[in-house]
């Protein structure tokens, strides 16, 4: 049995031959949450990284077993809180798949719009946090200026800014706010205008490029074998965008490109995310003027009882592929639910990517992995 004192004793002892073992986290400015990395150092060079998880484990999977099918989507907002909409959507879609509920067209379009806004908001926060990891403070405030507009839009329509709980089995919870379309258009205009500022301040900065190019390399084979997904895998050349490969909702009706890069380093991951924001803007522009009229929610029974069986849905969150595996016994609550979260698999590649690099490189690598700790621990 591993007791608390054992862990502490274990991780503070220095290794042989002058190796330094440092505990980065659970409270550390660069881990963005309570991730605990035990790093073995030789001077400044990283020899080994061992992530210790579980500091924010809230047993969400177990909790869902005692919640009804209408309730269990809400706790998933707290998993990857930056893609709350997308998590909720994955759960709602699983229930719809199980019960064969036909979602109205209007709800589908609203869902996609919300998803893409969430993706942009998440990437905005990431660009700021990542620049901050590399020591540049100012981009954080620039990114939050745009992100604020999205959270305002969310607040108007969903009533919350971070954990929206807007997607429900059968559609969306409320209709969109009357000023939704106009506000989104204003945001799109401002975003297109301001995104050049990021280019000037971050992308074209010599120091930023020298800090990220060639750092934290992940080959295509490794990306596949570690199970990476999302921008991390796409920067290594793995085509894995669920929106393209297994289109859901109305993703098969809109034009957008899957952003791919082959360099596999931190700069490639950065560029993939920046270009993905532009693709999201493209999707929003195509849909915002053509939200079909009609119902926003399908008529469902008050108590949802999916038939006995096993159901799996996958969606593309801002971080990668989120899978929801639902086992139903035919009752009012799920028998078992398992989430395949993108952050967990992406984190597993960290040790491989960071070995042999400097501590400073670890910040670039970890920053571009875009880890959200509750998504890893659940």
């Amino acid at each position, binding site marked *: 049995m591993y007791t608390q004192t054992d862990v502490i004793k274990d991780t503070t002892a220095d290794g042989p031959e002058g190796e*330094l073992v*440092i505990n980065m986290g659970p409270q*550390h*400015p*660069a881990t963005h949450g309570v991730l605990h990395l035990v790093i073995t*150092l030789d001077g*400044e060079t990283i020899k080994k990284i061992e992530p210790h998880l579980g500091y924010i484990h809230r047993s969400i999977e177990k909790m869902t077993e005692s919640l009804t099918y209408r309730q269990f989507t809400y706790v998933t907002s707290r998993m990857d809180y930056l893609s709350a909409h997308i998590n909720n959507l994955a759960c709602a879609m699983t229930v719809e798949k199980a019960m064969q509920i036909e979602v109205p067209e209007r709800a589908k379009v609203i869902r996609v719009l919300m998803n893409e806004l969430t993706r942009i908001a998440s990437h905005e926060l990431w660009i700021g946090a990542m*620049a*901050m*990891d*590399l*020591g*540049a*403070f*100012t981009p*954080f*405030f*620039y990114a939050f*200026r745009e992100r604020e507009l999205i959270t305002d839009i969310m607040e108007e329509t969903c009533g919350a800014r971070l954990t929206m709980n807007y997607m429900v089995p059968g559609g969306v919870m409320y209709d969109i706010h009357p000023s939704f379309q106009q506000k989104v258009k204003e945001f799109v205009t401002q975003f297109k205008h301001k995104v050049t500022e990021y280019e000037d*301040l*971050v992308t074209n*900065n010599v*120091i*930023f490029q*020298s*800090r990220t190019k060639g750092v934290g390399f992940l080959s295509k084979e490794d990306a596949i074998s570690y199970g990476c997904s999302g921008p991390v895998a796409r920067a290594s050349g793995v085509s894995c965008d669920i929106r393209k490969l297994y289109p859901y909702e109305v993703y098969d009706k809109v034009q957008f490109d899957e952003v791919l890069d082959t360099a596999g380093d931190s700069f490639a991951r950065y560029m993939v995310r920046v270009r993905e924001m532009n693709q999201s803007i493209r999707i929003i522009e195509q849909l915002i003027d053509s939200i079909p009229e009609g119902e926003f929610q399908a008529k469902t029974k008050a108590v949802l009882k999916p038939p006995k069986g096993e159901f799996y849905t996958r969606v593309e969150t801002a971080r990668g592929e989120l899978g929801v595996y639902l086992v139903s016994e035919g009752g009012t609550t799920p028998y078992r639910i398992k989430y395949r979260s993108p952050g967990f698999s992406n984190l597993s590649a960290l040790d491989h990517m960071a070995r042999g690099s*400097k*501590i*400073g*490189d*670890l*910040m670039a690598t970890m920053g571009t992995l875009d880890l959200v700790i509750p998504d890893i621990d659940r």
Partner: protein
Amino acid sequence: MFSLEGITGTVQNWLLNTFNPQVALLIECAIVILLAISLFAVLGLVLVLMERKVAAHIQIRLGPNRVGPGGMFQTVADTVKLIMKEGLTPDLADKFLFNLAPFVVMIVAMLLLAPIAFAKNFQIWDINIGVLYVSAVSSLSVIGILMAGWASNNKYSLLGAMRSGAQIVSYELSAGLAILSIVVLTGSLQISDIIASQQDGWWLFKGHIPVIIAFVIFLIAVTAETNRAPFDLAEAESELTAGFHTEYSGMKFALFFLAEYINIFIVCAIGATLFLGGWMPLHIGNWEGFNHVMDYIPSSVWFFGKTFFLIFLIMWFRWTFPRLRVDQLLNLEWKYLLPISLFNLLLVTLIAILGWHF
């Protein structure tokens, strides 16, 4: 016209008339010490507020605006908070060195104040090797940082201190060579001589492109020497939490913090003295009227204006650039800045020998 020289003259005359010369000298020393310490306090307060306001302006926010008019007393409130805080010493730390380190850093910053000319004939100590004194003493601060990092018994602190050691020792060379180029042009190490040589124009304008290169190298090197972003590897809060002062709290932390800002002021004052003519007003060739108007601005205003301009530049760097990595930092110095400054020094020497400068 307001002049600091006039005030000091009056005070000295009065002291000499009232007391015998030895007592007068002692009283003068006491006054100077008092003034130096109060300058420290004022500079600390002003610079921290300035940094926060500059940062806020760059980052499209307001900055401190609650305590006092326009947030003027925010730093006072922060200082009071730090004084009230408990000064923790870790259990396994080397207690003597741990407590000594902030004072070493602070005393070094204080010593550097001596040869700086704040206005016309207003200088604490016009030593004839002033520039050498500054270069020599400023490199002592690394001892305080290494001491703090080692004595804290914290791995982050140790890493930060080691980085800082490598960094300050390296960038000392470039800063020294940049300073040397002005010494070559002036032919003197004395601060007052260097300022006097810029009566007809500042070295930045008189010395052609080589001096401009030296100025740029000086700015980069002193930014690194004062551990400021983009060279703040010793602190690197996203990597090493707070680097060498991770374990410090309360007033001991405040001393490190204050020393950082005093050091910025001092290197910028040196830069203003060497390259921008110190307290000399801006004179342009034969524009008599313009030159007369410039002469009416007190010399202390000129000095502080130039210094604060350079401080603003250094703050601007901090809030724009990401941090360099430790090997890139050393590459920049040893592969680029050092060869360039060596070659540049040769050019400056050529200019000085042939008398090509204006």
